């Protein structure tokens, strides 16, 4: 007798409310948590790191000039050069573009016994283009 007088929500309305609450909570949590995943620089839809692995450069140093040929299929925006000699390390930026199959030759000075070239590629981050310096460099052949 007492139980029949208890009031409550219709089961249909309860189910709808449950589903609505679940969906809303999921969307809120997803939007909030996405900011923790972080912004990644991408190139052609993949993380820029993967494009860096596809970069292929032929590099030679003849004692004064550094010659670089882009033997791969990734456009290189510019190259950073790490020059080692006599216990010192110098850095230089060669701001020249290397399209597919293109070559450059630049004077970088003499007296170095180890040259490392680090490619910089152009990637996309959210809505803007951004430069990405590859983590791995390429050693120049001393000729």
């Amino acid at each position: 007798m007492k139980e029949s007088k208890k009031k409550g929500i219709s089961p249909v309305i309860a189910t709808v409310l449950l589903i609505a609450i679940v969906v809303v909570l999921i969307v809120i949590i997803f939007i909030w948590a996405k900011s923790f995943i972080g912004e990644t620089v991408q190139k052609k839809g993949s993380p820029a790191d993967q494009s860096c692995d596809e970069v292929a450069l032929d590099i030679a140093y003849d004692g004064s000039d550094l010659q670089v040929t882009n033997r791969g299929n990734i456009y290189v925006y510019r190259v950073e050069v790490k020059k080692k000699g006599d216990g010192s390390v110098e850095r230089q930026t060669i701001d020249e573009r290397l399209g597919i199959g293109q070559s450059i030759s630049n004077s970088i000075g003499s007296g170095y016994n180890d040259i490392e070239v680090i490619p910089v590629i152009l990637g996309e981050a959210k809505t803007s283009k951004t430069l990405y310096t590859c983590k791995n460099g390429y050693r120049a052949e001393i000729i």
Partner: protein
Amino acid sequence: MNRTNQMNKKGVSVIIGYVLLIVIAISLALLVYAWMKGNLPKEKQQCPDEVSLVIKDYNCFENGKINITLKNNGFFDIDGFIAKISNKSKSLPILALKGVFPVQSNDGQFIFGVPMNSSQEFTETFDYSNHNLILDLQIMPLKRIGNKLVLCENSVIRQKLDETSCANSS
């Protein structure tokens, strides 16, 4: 007494428990999906390893022209190539060969009007008069993959030339 103690214990409503479970499970799944989507490697547009182009023959002329015969030794069609030379003994081939009119080139890049089939040969005259001398010749094959021209980095060929034969005396 035990029954009374159990009745007085507080806990989360069963319905709220279900809601929380479902929300947590689906949220985790979506987060993992979003993270994986940005980190899974995409398929690379790569040239097949069986692409092969060889320099069958070459003839240098004193007026700064060189005749080159290329042969497609591989299993796939080739859509073009990039020709570079060096004119110094200590140098990579970084100087672009030019075409002789009406053959057009773009920084050493030559594209075939009709792809070069397997076993086919191609002979053409090129201009090296700007560089005076050819000591090293490099040919990088190009192949169309989808709608993109891809450089076949594993099929690049290089040939040292006799320094007396390819010298421009004009």
